């Protein structure tokens, strides 16, 4: 099953986000070896060059590192993974607040509504 990609942002950005979520949610564990570029590209249903570009980008953030002959691995640095997890949470919360503020709710009201929702 190809990955679900949307139409308005560059594909390599979406691949990066997809792999970040896979790392945070534990699909790939710290220190795990990643499949080859070609296999990942086939799995995602994307162009291998685009997959390569996304992986190089993940490498530059340190989340993934490559060993010359044996392939690419997920970082075993827990703090790095936790940091990324935190930054993804911030993005989600910001979007959540923005969309409810558009509907006319204030910050206080939103927090109250979230409380009520979790207590239900």
């Amino acid at each position, binding site marked *: 099953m190809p990955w679900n990609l949307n139409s*308005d942002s560059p594909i390599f950005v979406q691949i990066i986000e997809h792999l970040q979520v896979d790392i945070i949610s534990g699909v790939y564990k710290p220190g795990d070896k990643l499949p080859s570029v070609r296999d990942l590209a086939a799995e*995602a249903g994307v162009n291998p060059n685009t997959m390569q570009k996304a992986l190089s980008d993940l490498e530059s953030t340190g989340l993934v590192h490559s060993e010359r002959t044996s392939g690419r691995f997920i970082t075993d640095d827990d703090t790095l993974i936790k940091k990324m997890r935190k930054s993804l949470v911030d993005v989600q919360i910001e979007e959540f607040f923005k969309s409810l503020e558009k509907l006319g709710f204030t910050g206080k009201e939103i927090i109250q509504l979230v409380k009520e929702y979790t207590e239900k």
Partner: protein
Amino acid sequence: MSNLLEIQGLSKTYDKKQALNDVTLNIAPGHIVGLLGPNGSGKTTLIKIICGLLQPTNGSVLVDGNPVGPKSKAIVSYLPDKTYLDENMTIESIIAMFKDFYEDFDENRASEMLSSLKIDPKSKLKTLSKGTKEKVQLILIMSRRAKLYILDEPIAGVDPAARDYILRTIISNFEPSASLIIATHLISDIEPVLDEAIFLQNGSIKLYQSVDDIRAEHGKSVDELFREVYRC
């Protein structure tokens, strides 16, 4: 790295109608390129000139440094938009013919793909559905270890599940030194697989850009951009 396909100032006129007008483009090895444009924009004419089936009025084509001729044809694997195979032949005998005809034909690859798509090699072509015939032809074309693959409307008659399989097969089979040109109207299906998109309009290149640059620049997919550019 030198280009796999180099086209310089290519024009083609049929009687009075200009089908291609001063087309210049280069395709690097390892790239998958979508050749997109409305009906009558010159896609098939361009493809047929690259394959040596039509003579250009002006301009030149080089495939891996070779002018169009026996040397270029040996490294181009072409899927036409219409079938040319004898309907009375079985798939097996067509495979044997391809093996005779093309030095770079990989029989194992063909058998593997046929069995994944549950197609019986003993069946005659005329007993197959339209979609299955298309699959068989695509399998034959992709089983050559060519340098340049040119597919003219390869997935139009194929169901979505088989489309996914075929695209996956293309991704995982084709060599990093080879390139692939896909002419199609089904842009959204193939878009994630493309490096670049070429928009043809009235025989000229309107746009030749990487898919991710198009998305970053226009904030929309190639499919959406196409609908906007060619709005009727």
